[in-house]
């Protein structure tokens, strides 16, 4: 997917002006935020259960993997191969596309049924398949909606149509399926299922992501709320898993620890409707399963983060809690961010995966309120990572020269108390003049964005240091 992250500010402006979107965002937000909060309360209500301790345990599992990623990858590879899977590596999106198209050609595939995979978004896999004459069909309901809506990109990592209302989907379905407009979600889901069933039966290849890879068993785990993941991974003869190298966990036990966190953090569910652990190809006597299983392990920038200050980002288990709780995401939605991953985790990942210079706004598009960090199930210090990216921008001289100069100048003055005192007194008097005897300033050229939406209260008239010096001087004199 080509990144539009450079245009964050302008895109965010459009999203703020989109009334329908604003209404949709409000509803979706409260569902997820309240859902998670309740799930945590319920979890902690059980004797001896402590959600905080669970978060610590999960972070430790993820860190254990990252500390020896190569070793765990080898373990996974060995185990998966022993069960008949072919394990392949892809350096970047282009390589993913090449590998998948090659596999499809080898097996004479004309149609591929897909379950949700953010990596296929990173790679632009659907376009590559289509270009090779292979029809990709998204079978996750949300992804399906986006595909029939002219391949619209997802706006959320677990709820791709977070930005859409029921009514919008109903109209889209009526238009695309030539059916009467429905007004209930169940009815729409049924309609989609009927369309998709034919694709499931006719697709020669299934493509899925993986929420986790389990090293000790060589399995890929899939966490979904729709049955489509099961269909995609068992009906077609060929199954291709495309996933990031960081998705590894050492053991099934570790997987179960993470599963206590993932659905609760994501949707507030105790457990998702489906949890599938897929191991190897269809064995003798097995009733279903793919005859050919390929696992494509993708780097696309991940390995370069290992051992750096950004390594904690690789702990991410893609639950979406950070965006659900982000006041910026709640205000502009996912599309404003311009690439595959939105919200706080996206604002960290997009510059790291697509180039710092290609996403200059994103690390700044945060109030650093840390509503994300406190809900992240694997305790990723997202505000700290955003701040580190800001540091990188300064170090690489990527900030506008005016901003850099202003900061340096301000810093220089602030280090000199007498000069600073003079500057502050001058500023206060200037601001008071601008207030023109009232208690507020309605427009200030130095901060046009600020005063476009709010007034600036006028200062009191004199600085604290001025008044305090006067008071102390006065007391000093009276004492004498």
């Amino acid at each position, binding site marked *: 997917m080509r990144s539009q992250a450079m245009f964050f500010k302008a895109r965010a402006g459009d999203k703020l002006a989109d009334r329908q979107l604003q209404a949709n965002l409000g509803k979706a937000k409260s569902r997820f935020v309240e859902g998670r909060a309740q799930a945590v309360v319920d979890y902690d209500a059980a004797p001896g259960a402590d959600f905080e301790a669970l978060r610590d345990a999960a972070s430790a599992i993820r860190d254990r993997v990252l500390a020896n990623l190569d070793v765990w990858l080898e373990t996974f590879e060995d185990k998966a191969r022993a069960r008949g899977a072919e394990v392949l590596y892809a350096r970047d999106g282009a390589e993913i596309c090449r590998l998948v198209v090659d596999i499809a050609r080898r097996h004479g595939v004309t149609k591929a049924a897909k379950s949700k995979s953010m990596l296929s978004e990173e790679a632009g896999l659907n376009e590559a398949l289509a270009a090779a004459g292979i029809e990709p069909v998204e079978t996750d309901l949300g992804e399906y909606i986006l595909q029939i809506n002219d391949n619209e990109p997802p706006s959320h990592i677990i709820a791709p149509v977070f930005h859409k209302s029921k009514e919008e989907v109903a109209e889209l379905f009526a238009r695309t399926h030539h059916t009467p407009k429905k007004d209930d979600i169940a009815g729409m889901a049924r309609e989609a299922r009927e369309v998709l069933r034919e694709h499931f039966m006719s697709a020669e290849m299934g493509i899925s992501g993986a929420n986790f890879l389990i090293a000790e068993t060589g399995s890929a785990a899939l966490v979904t709320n729709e049955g489509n993941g099961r269909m995609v991974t068992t009906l077609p003869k060929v199954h291709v898993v495309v996933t990031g190298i960081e998705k590894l966990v050492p053991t099934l036990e570790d997987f179960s620890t993470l599963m206590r966190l993932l659905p609760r953090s994501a949707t507030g569910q105790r457990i998702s409707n489906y949890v599938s652990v897929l191991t190897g190809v269809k064995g003798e006597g097995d009733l279903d399963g793919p005859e050919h299983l390929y696992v494509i392990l993708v780097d696309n920038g991940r390995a370069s983060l290992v051992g750096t200050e950004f390594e904690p980002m690789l702990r991410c288990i893609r639950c979406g809690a950070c965006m659900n709780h982000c006041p910026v995401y709640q*205000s502009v939605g996912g599309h404003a961010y311009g690439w595959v991953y939105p919200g706080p985790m996206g604002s960290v990942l997009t510059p790291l995966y697509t180039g710092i210079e290609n996403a200059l706004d994103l690390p*700044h598009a*945060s109030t650093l309120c840390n509503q994300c960090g406190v809900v992240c199930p694997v305790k990723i210090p997202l505000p700290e990572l955003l701040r580190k990216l800001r540091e990188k921008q300064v170090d690489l001289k990527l900030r506008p020269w005016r901003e850099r100069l202003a900061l340096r100048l301000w*810093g220089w003055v602030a280090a000199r108390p007498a000069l600073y005192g003079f500057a*502050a007194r001058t500023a206060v008097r200037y601001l008071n003049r601008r207030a023109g005897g009232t208690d507020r300033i309605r427009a200030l050229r130095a901060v046009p*964005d600020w005063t476009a939406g*709010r007034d600036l209260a006028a200062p009191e008239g004199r600085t604290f240091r001025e*008044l*305090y010096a006067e008071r102390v001087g006065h007391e000093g004199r009276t004492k004498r």
Partner: protein
Amino acid sequence: MTKEKMRVGLFVTCLVDLMRPRIGFAALRLLEAAGCEVVVPSTQTCCGQPAFNSGDTRVARALALKLIAEFEGLEYVVVPSGSCGGMIRVHYPQLFADEPAVAARAGALAARTFELTDFLVSVLGVAKVPGDFEGTVTYHDSCSGLRELGVKAQPRALLAHMPGVELKEMAASEECCGFGGMFSVKFGDISTRIVDRKCDNILATGADAVVLGDLGCMLNIEGRLRRRGDERTRVLHVAEVLAGED
């Protein structure tokens, strides 16, 4: 022999110095009323947070060093701001992670630095405040104070000592007001959308005043309330409420 008074350094913060000196004097009165000897280093300017959050660690370090030197000799440092308090307590030690000698000094100062209401409650155990505010208030939990310093119960405990104050909690009091320092200057329109939600929640309580502990949030929320035409809801720093009129 009378017990020696606790020597407390007051860092008023650059925004208070510039915009609302009365918050600084209110903090001073509260500390003095609680029996502290308050020292206000006259050379203080800014803690360096704007530079730190903009990614300019060089400037941030210089200002941090300056503040550390100014306050090092004092028993405690008290700050009427959660975000500046968080800067000193949480981020100063990180800033000097690769200079152990300075990091030790930063760490020592960090351990003695408190947000104002936290200090009054957790260190001094204050149970009486001079303010005589009368009316209903709602409390906005500023992000850094809440999530970096654990300031939540302290201001409420202090307000509970004021017989004329009735606290009416707003919905989502822990949600960000959208200020974010330079964020509100760079992305004013997004910030406005966020602060609108905060204003809705404030107004829904019908409180006479929204009370909070950070001047940044205060300017943002007050500015937006007034721009929306609300002239009724007062926006007050918790120190002003607790200390009363001079």
